[in-house]
């Protein structure tokens, strides 16, 4: 009921906020002194709080990068945990400034919800996790299974498509948060858990006995996950976009949080432009020219963020795969900084 109220409140805010002319998001953020960022309610590797309430994760790093770019301080972020169901209303109503919450970029979301996808910070695809006990090795053996899914996700839709395509039946048990789904899976209410595959690895670490569950090899969909902003504020859209790009570009150029200070003196024209010592910088977006320097210094480049949160320095141990740079066999590719 609280959730419903919250949702209703947000919808009402849409009606009530009417008439007010919209100040630019950048000005609002600067005046407020912090960035308001919508994240998941707890998904290891992407956005989850530790026992002291400090948030970390690949998605959280997007917020930190934007805070570094706009306010010069990556720690000036307020995190709002949102279920999949609440996230878009929260963004539309202005409760948050940006939504990096393992959100899949789709046509409907991009074009009819009044929001714009900024780019992709993780290329994912939907997978299945089952209990080892079942002895299942492929998703094609799942006819008649009961599935725990999260409400309001692309997962719900892909699931229906996949089972229909393969002439199989399933029973969806739809929960609001991944914590509930995990609980349903562990207690045996459902035979399997389905979600974006990276998230399954994350959720698996939350199980009492992670080794009792396996993630099946099938990937049944494309899930490009990326941050989203409200439509209609191009300046803010650009800031979000180029903050994200800066991290990837830094990896490409070999600039990391460890060497960025030394790199400030680099003769390499590409590095010099990225760090704002020459070239266009951030002026045209209303932020400081050294925004990329701030991001790399305080948050790190994409590779650092990836390995720290989901890669080899994390319990998830996910390979770069598609998320490697284009020159390393992946598809991470950003426009040039010039």
């Amino acid at each position, binding site marked *: *009921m609280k*959730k*419903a109220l919250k*949702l*209703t409140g*947000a*919808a009402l805010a*849409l*009606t009530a*906020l*009417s*008439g007010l002319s919209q100040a630019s998001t950048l000005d609002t953020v600067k005046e407020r002194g912090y960035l308001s960022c919508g994240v998941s309610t707890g998904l290891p590797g992407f956005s989850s709080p530790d026992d002291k309430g400090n948030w970390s994760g690949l998605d959280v790093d997007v917020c930190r990068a934007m805070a570094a770019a706009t306010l010069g301080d990556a720690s000036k972020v307020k995190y709002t945990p949102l279920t*999949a*169901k609440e996230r*878009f*209303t929260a963004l*539309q109503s202005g409760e948050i400034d940006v939504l990096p919450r393992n959100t899949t970029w789709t046509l*409907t*979301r991009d*074009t*009819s*919800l*009044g*929001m714009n996808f900024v780019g992709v910070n993780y290329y994912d695809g939907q997978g299945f996790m089952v209990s080892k006990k*079942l002895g299942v090795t492929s998703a094609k053996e*799942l*006819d*008649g*299974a*009961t599935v725990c899914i999260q*409400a*309001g*996700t692309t997962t*719900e*839709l892909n*699931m*229906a*498509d996949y*089972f*229909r395509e393969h002439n199989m039946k*399933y*029973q*969806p*048990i*739809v*929960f*609001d948060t991944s914590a*509930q789904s995990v*609980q*349903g899976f562990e*207690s*045996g*209410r459902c*035979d399997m858990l389905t979600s974006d595959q990276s998230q399954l690895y994350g959720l698996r670490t939350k199980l009492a006995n992670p080794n009792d569950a396996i993630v099946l090899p099938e990937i049944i969909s494309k899930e490009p996950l990326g941050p989203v902003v*409200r*439509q*209609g504020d191009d300046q803010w859209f650009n800031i979000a976009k180029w903050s994200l790009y800066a991290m990837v570009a830094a990896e490409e150029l070999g600039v990391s949080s460890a060497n960025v200070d030394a790199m400030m003196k680099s003769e390499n024209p590409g590095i010099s432009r990225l760090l704002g010592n020459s070239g266009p910088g951030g002026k045209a977006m209303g932020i400081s020219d050294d925004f990329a320097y701030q991001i790399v210094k305080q948050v790190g480049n994409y590779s650092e963020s990836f390995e720290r949160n989901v890669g080899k320095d994390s319990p998830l141990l996910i390979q770069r795969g598609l998320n490697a740079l284009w020159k390393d066999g992946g598809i991470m590719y950003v426009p040039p900084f010039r």
Partner: protein
Amino acid sequence: MSENIASAPAAGRSSSTRFLYDPKVRSIVFQLLFIGLLFFLVSTIVTNTTNNLEQRGITTGFDFLSQEAGFGILQSLVEYDETHTFGKTFIVGLLNTILVSVLGIVLSTVVGFLVGVGRLSRNWLISRLCGVYIEIFRNIPVLLQILFWYIAVLRVLPSPRQSLSLGESVFLNLRGLYFPAPIFEEGSGVIFAALGVAVALIIGLSYWAKRRQVMTGQTFPVFNASLALIVLLPAVAWFVAGQPVSLEMPELKGFNFRGGITVIPELIALLLGLSFYTAAYIAENVRAGIDAINKGQQEASGALGLSESKTMRLVIIPQAMRVVIPPLSTNYMNLIKNSSLATAIGYPELVNVFMGTTLNQTGQAIEIIAMTMAVYLTMNIIVSLFMNWFNNRMALVER
């Protein structure tokens, strides 16, 4: 005469002021003003909202209702699969809301009346137990109770392979309660016809018995006779027609039981949570209603030689009902509204399906929330109208 006196001083004023001071005219003017203002407010909000939504690039309108939904729903009373429309998801959610509300109202009423009457029992143990029931179930938030049934009770049941079973036909496990479904084959029409005849006979019988009692004072065991009719007639018809009804047994196939009728644990948990919570309030209403009846009524009916149970049934309860019914409708309405807590345990009712998944897949928050609110409003108005009608009927008995 008095009229003349009253109007005499006013004669000097112009007729228009007199008109303004007329309380009738004044009340009409103010009401018109108020309605005008209200209309203005509503229309400003509506135009503002549509303008704003358009400006922000958010699609509006109800076109989405005819688009394909593309997601599955756990339980549906009508045929539904992912190729149906978003409009259909509304129907599915609505029916699931109605299902749990109706079952909840029936169960909470039965339990509530039993506990309420038991609370006043002369038997110390019964009355204490009922008191404890009321205190416990009334004082714990209903959401917690629903979660309790769902997580603490139903989740610890065995897995499908180790189901508890009753005669190999009814099964209980953590995926739900499974029982055989009747399959009506050709010729089962006779059974329904027999059922219809039985009902007609029962109605006739009660009329006749009542008239006979009024005329002669003799009573007739209507209840027992009705029971016999409603069981025996269809049973005879079943034999005569050559046993055209068979049972489809639930069977463990693959991951789950298939066939038969399944009651999902989400429904059971929600139903138990809502009903036991609401029943505690109803019990208190019933107790208050009975307490409100003058003690003299009980003594008088005792003096007439009526037994204790007859006193309760024929004298006390009918009068107590007049006190019980008005708060009862509030209890029912709360039960309906609380059914939206289902979203916490994934029971696919209106808020979970329509305001949850459908809203999220289409993003049309305002339309969907408005439709959902309209549903609860309508359901509650219907309950309220029905209870008013029922109350009026009961009130006629008053002497």
